[in-house]
């Protein structure tokens, strides 16, 4: 019985290998894109797969010669797998890219420049997004979507404490005093959750204070700027000075978004991408406002977004370009907008996305586009974000004091940036 199963498994594996071989062969032998072509399309978000499939099907209807094969790899393995595949020349023809990685992939010639393609038009997309995917004057990514950060709040807890809901006019001081009123240890309720998350929290508070994580030319760290330090201090004070946020340990054991979703936290700065989680949370009556302004009235949020890119060693550059062009079209972005999972990058389509979930003021995320700053990146972002996060974890955990830690981050970052 067991042996039979083994033989069957072996045969199955052989069959798989055989079909795998044959499919890749047919893909590579495509006769100069005139015959039928199968393009592989690498993505990492299962929630977005239905929308991507719909777009792929619509594209196939318009281009019957080109079939799109979507390859979903969970985010945890996506980059490891992609990098290995790219090293061996077998990465997908078209795939998702994010801002922290584009410098590495474009810098190491793994992507085709879109600026060189006839008919490339980046005017329908926000400038900050185009800039994020531009390296040495050439754009490598067709913006797909974007995200900004807003101040989520729990209406039930605000009502119970008699505190007015956050508005676009709020400043840091309003957040601090509201958090103090909302904080209620006897009920296990915190006024705010202020973790050492960078995109959702620290990069924004640094900007609001007038500082920055990295200089605009991507050459120097901004962590040793006293204004950046003030931004970090503001975020840390909720834990160490005002005692209105769970500690780093508590937020490690139970993630702050889970604390917010279960009604333990009254305010939490978080991206629009976590909206589906809060929408699905039972008994959570929440809403979202723009982020507060810093001490000098400066408003800011980082903007990050994905883009579709073409693999430099694709066998079908022409077909891949046609597909990417379609991915950047209004039609494809409208399909994304309707599903409500992400904000489409295409200007003017955000209204569809906002209308997809009327119970929240999602317009708060769109309104902040005017003050949005590109997510801090360099040519090899991962090289400095890893030690940066480690040190921030140490600061938040109370192992290293803020001033020393921030100096350490700046030194490590500058050393890595100098290598670029």
């Amino acid at each position, binding site marked *: 019985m067991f042996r039979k199963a083994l033989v069957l498994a072996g045969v199955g594996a052989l069959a798989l290998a055989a079909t795998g071989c044959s499919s890749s062969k047919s893909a590579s032998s495509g006769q100069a894109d005139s015959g039928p072509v199968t393009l592989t399309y690498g993505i990492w978000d299962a929630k977005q797969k239905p929308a991507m499939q719909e777009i792929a099907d619509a594209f196939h209807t318009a281009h019957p010669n080109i079939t799109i094969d979507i390859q979903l790899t969970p985010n945890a393995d996506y980059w490891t797998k992609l990098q290995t595949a790219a090293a061996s020349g077998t990465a997908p023809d078209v795939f998702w890219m994010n801002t922290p990685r584009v410098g590495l992939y474009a810098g190491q010639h793994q992507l085709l420049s879109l600026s060189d393609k006839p008919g490339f038009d980046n005017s329908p997309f926000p400038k900050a997004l185009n800039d994020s995917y531009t390296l040495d004057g050439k754009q490598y990514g067709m913006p797909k979507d974007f995200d900004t950060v807003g101040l989520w709040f729990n209406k039930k807890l605000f009502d119970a404490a008699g505190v007015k809901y956050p508005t676009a006019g709020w400043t840091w001081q309003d957040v601090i005093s509201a958090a103090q009123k909302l904080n209620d240890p006897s009920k296990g309720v915190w006024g705010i959750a202020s973790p050492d998350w960078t995109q959702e929290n620290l990069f924004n508070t640094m900007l609001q204070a007038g500082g920055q994580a990295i200089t605009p030319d991507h050459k120097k760290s901004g962590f040793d700027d006293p204004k950046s330090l003030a931004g970090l201090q503001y975020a840390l004070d909720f834990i160490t000075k005002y005692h209105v946020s769970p500690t*780093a340990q508590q937020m490690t054991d139970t993630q702050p978004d889970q604390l917010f979703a279960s009604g333990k936290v009254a305010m939490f700065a978080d991206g629009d991408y976590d909206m589906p989680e809060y929408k699905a949370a039972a008994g959570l009556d929440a809403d979202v406002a723009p982020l507060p302004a810093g001490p000098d009235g400066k408003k800011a949020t980082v903007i990050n977004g994905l883009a579709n890119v073409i693999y430099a060693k694709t066998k079908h550059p022409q077909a891949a370009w046609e597909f990417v062009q379609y991915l950047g079209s209004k039609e494809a972005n409208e399909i994304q907008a309707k599903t409500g999972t992400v904000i489409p990058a295409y200007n003017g389509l955000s209204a569809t996305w906002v209308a997809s979930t009327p119970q929240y003021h999602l317009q708060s995320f769109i309104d902040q586009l005017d003050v949005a700053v590109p997510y801090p990146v360099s040519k090899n972002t991962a090289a400095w974000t890893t030690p940066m996060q480690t040190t921030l974890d140490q600061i938040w955990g*109370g192992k290293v004091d803020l001033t020393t830690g921030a100096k350490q981050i700046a030194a490590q970052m500058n050393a890595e940036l100098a290598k670029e």
Partner: protein
Amino acid sequence: MSATESTPVAAGRATGARPGPERGPGSPGTRPVAGRRPRFSKAHMKEWAWGYAMIAPLFVGLFLFYLWPIVQSAYFSFTSWGAFGGQQWVGFQNYSSFLSDPQLPRAAWNTVKYALIILAGIPVSIVFAALMNQVSGKYASLYRVLYFLPVVSMPAAVAMVWRWLYNGDYGLINYLLSLIGIHGPHWVSDDRYTIWAMGLVGIWSSLGYNMIIFAAGLKNIPRQYYEASSLDGAGRVRQFFSITLPLLSPSIFFVSVLSVIGGLQMFDMVLMMLGKTNPALAGSKTIAYLFYEDAFVTGNQGLAAAIAVVLTLVLLALTAIQFRLQKRWVHYA
């Protein structure tokens, strides 16, 4: 199913550690030795060829997926990698940067501490195995399955469940502690406790496997020894130390060798139970975790290969030492 199957196999391996002269392909025993035939006769060769053909599927797999990567890793440890392939020979540079890594002392200590905790769990397994041997009847196999389940559970799932149990604010463990008036710590986010927390899970998840081996070892001890010794007036404690423990020593040796090797390679719990953004991570990294970080987070594969080579050499040395020392305390009946 695997529980009952692995018993004879594992026990065989345990006692098989004894140096045996009659092994290898040409060994007598499978066939009566035909004295006058030359050693490399055609018939012999044919038989060997068949033998190798039979083991080829296993051997080819072993070579391709175990032996060859070891050779490759050793080579890669002297190279520096580009993000998308392309290696450059850098000599011993990876080794020197690993040995001068400021994280190394703490990681080495954490690794050793974890392995020691796992070793300290061996007596627990022996006690449980002895107790298990007392159980007979229809519940015996049920118990065996229950204790063996952690062994066959996915490490990721195990880590997730324990992460919940260890939760400082809402975890079951701290809730139970609060009932007796103890305010439990943040087990997996405070680096004073993380290694202990992981060690406990390590003992728990290897308990079933160790018990199976010890249970088999205990069954192999002849009853007559106990009968004879009780006639001589030995009590239960004396019997345990003078009969059970010495005769169980081959199994103990086998388990401790495996525990040291497994313990020093621990990595999964740091990643799954602690996670990448954890204030306790810096103080809880193990050597294997440093390897993971270099290979898969910062993309420094050459350095990672050097760490793997060093770890392999240390494991080889420790295992060799254990084999040397076994002569002093392991009794093969």
